[in-house]
């Protein structure tokens, strides 16, 4: 691991300002992804700004009946919040489907949004990777790509956004609240937070240099039944091959977002409109797919997983 200097920030604005003052600075919260990547020198920050003391660790009701989740609320605490479990079940379901108990105790709401891809070629510094080293090529295209993306990918990168929580946030139309180094704040719709790779797969989010996530805002509850079905190579503690986050109303209408297939939690208006027709919704979600031979199965898996969700919503079949 490369040497780095370390400081603790006293306020969100102070942290954001420090991030542009120091060359190569990064924020650190739970550290479960960043430290892992620092050990293999995929991440090489010269300076770490510890944001754990910023007090952004509470969940509060908003005036319109939604929730404001502080960026430092741990995955475990967010999953356990009574309001979240009652009104945003898809979010609790998604969080507890991911990682391990140990990791969920450390991982934070803000940090989880910034979790980097688990593409093996991103992790292996002996391999080309346009995300890790722009212009070096993509080892995954033509390589081992079972886990990788089928939609929204590019000829420069076929990595996926690996997380579960953000897939639920996408179906809930959450917003990400930030503060910039100049002290100004903004909210970014979750659908615009993660970028498609295009020609610049090393640029992963809408965040600007030094911009710090301070909270995630949930709109008022949607009602309906909440589902998060995750298909993976192991029944616990594994990343999704395909996951489906859905909120389904009594008349069969609803919303659906898909994880494990794209650079971002994947949601398509035509798919929501097609519900409760699983096949039609899945066709909309995988339209224009460019799978590899290794991950072509994900097209069928999206439809089957979604069909399972909708069957459960109708009261058929077992829960996941």
């Amino acid at each position, binding site marked *: 691991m490369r040497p780095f200097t370390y400081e603790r920030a006293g306020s969100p604005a102070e942290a954001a300002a420090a991030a542009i003052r120091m060359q190569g600075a990064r924020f650190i919260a739970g550290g479960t992804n960043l430290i*892992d990547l620092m050990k293999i020198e995929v991440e090489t920050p010269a300076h770490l700004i510890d944001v754990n003391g910023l007090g952004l660790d509470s969940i509060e009701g908003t005036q319109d009946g939604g929730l404001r989740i502080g960026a430092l609320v741990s995955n475990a605490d967010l999953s356990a919040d009574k309001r979240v479990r009652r009104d945003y079940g898809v979010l609790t379901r998604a969080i507890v489907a991911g990682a391990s108990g140990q990791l969920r105790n450390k991982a934070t709401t803000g940090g989880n949004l910034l979790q980097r891809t688990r593409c093996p070629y991103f992790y292996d510094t002996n391999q080309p990777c346009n995300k890790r080293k722009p212009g070096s090529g993509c080892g995954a295209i033509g390589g081992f790509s079972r886990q990788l993306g089928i939609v929204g990918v590019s000829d420069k990168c076929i990595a996926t956004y690996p997380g579960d929580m953000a897939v639920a946030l996408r179906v809930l139309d959450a917003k990400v609240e930030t503060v910039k180094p100049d002290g100004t704040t903004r909210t970014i719709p979750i659908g615009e937070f993660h970028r498609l790779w295009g020609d610049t797969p090393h640029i992963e989010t809408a965040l600007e240099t030094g911009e710090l996530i301070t909270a995630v805002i949930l709109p008022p509850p949607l009602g309906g039944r909440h589902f998060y079905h995750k298909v993976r190579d192991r029944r616990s503690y594994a990343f999704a091959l395909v996951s489906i986050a859905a909120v389904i109303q009594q008349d069969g209408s609803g919303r659906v977002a898909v994880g494990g297939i794209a650079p971002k939690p994947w949601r398509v208006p035509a798919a929501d409109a097609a519900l409760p027709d699983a096949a039609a919704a899945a066709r909309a979600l995988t339209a224009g797919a460019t799978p590899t031979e290794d991950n072509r199965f994900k097209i069928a898996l999206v439809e089957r997983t979604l069909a399972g969700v909708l069957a459960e919503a109708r009261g058929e079949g077992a829960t996941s």
Partner: protein
Amino acid sequence: MTIDHRTLLASRRGVLAGSAAGVAVHSASPAFAASSSQKADADPTAKVSLKVNGTDHALDVDTRTTLLDLLREHLKLAGTKKGCDHGQCGACTVMVNGERINSCLSFAVMHEGDEVTTIEGLGTPDDLHPLQDAFIEHDGYQCGYCTPGQICSAVAMLQEIRSGIPSHVQDDITEDPSVTELEMRERMSGNICRCGAYSNIAEALAEFAGETA
């Protein structure tokens, strides 16, 4: 038979209880510098004060030092194990302020003021933790390398169930979870046993959880 087994275990591997001796206390100034210091020719260090198994420590460490390496290399508490060093195996699991974490994925300097409990803080060779007894009784290991992490993880895991943290295997996540084998298995998935002693670990947990329910 149990006593023989226990003696063998303590003498041959000392894995369950770790080393009770060898606690190096560095009595540096308790004053904490909020920023790391860096001399021109030295790698950056920072001061951190924390409590481990009830004992206060104040250290000045390379900022790259993980909590795991601080425990093992600086405090000589080698009961906590380094398996994968990437948060995948759970051998390094300790409790920080009562919550289990992977100590390999946490920098020591980020634990200012924290209270850390390791396997050495749960039991000693002369006074085993009840879950250590249960592991011996049910043969919940072969090589024993994952065992300190399994035990630290399990003690905190049961507390998580009792405090209502939900899990993936609950049918109704609005309900409080209960201590069942299914729940315990799901919640222990972050602790890998390369020897495959899972069924015996599950039996040890069931016995311990039953006694403390």
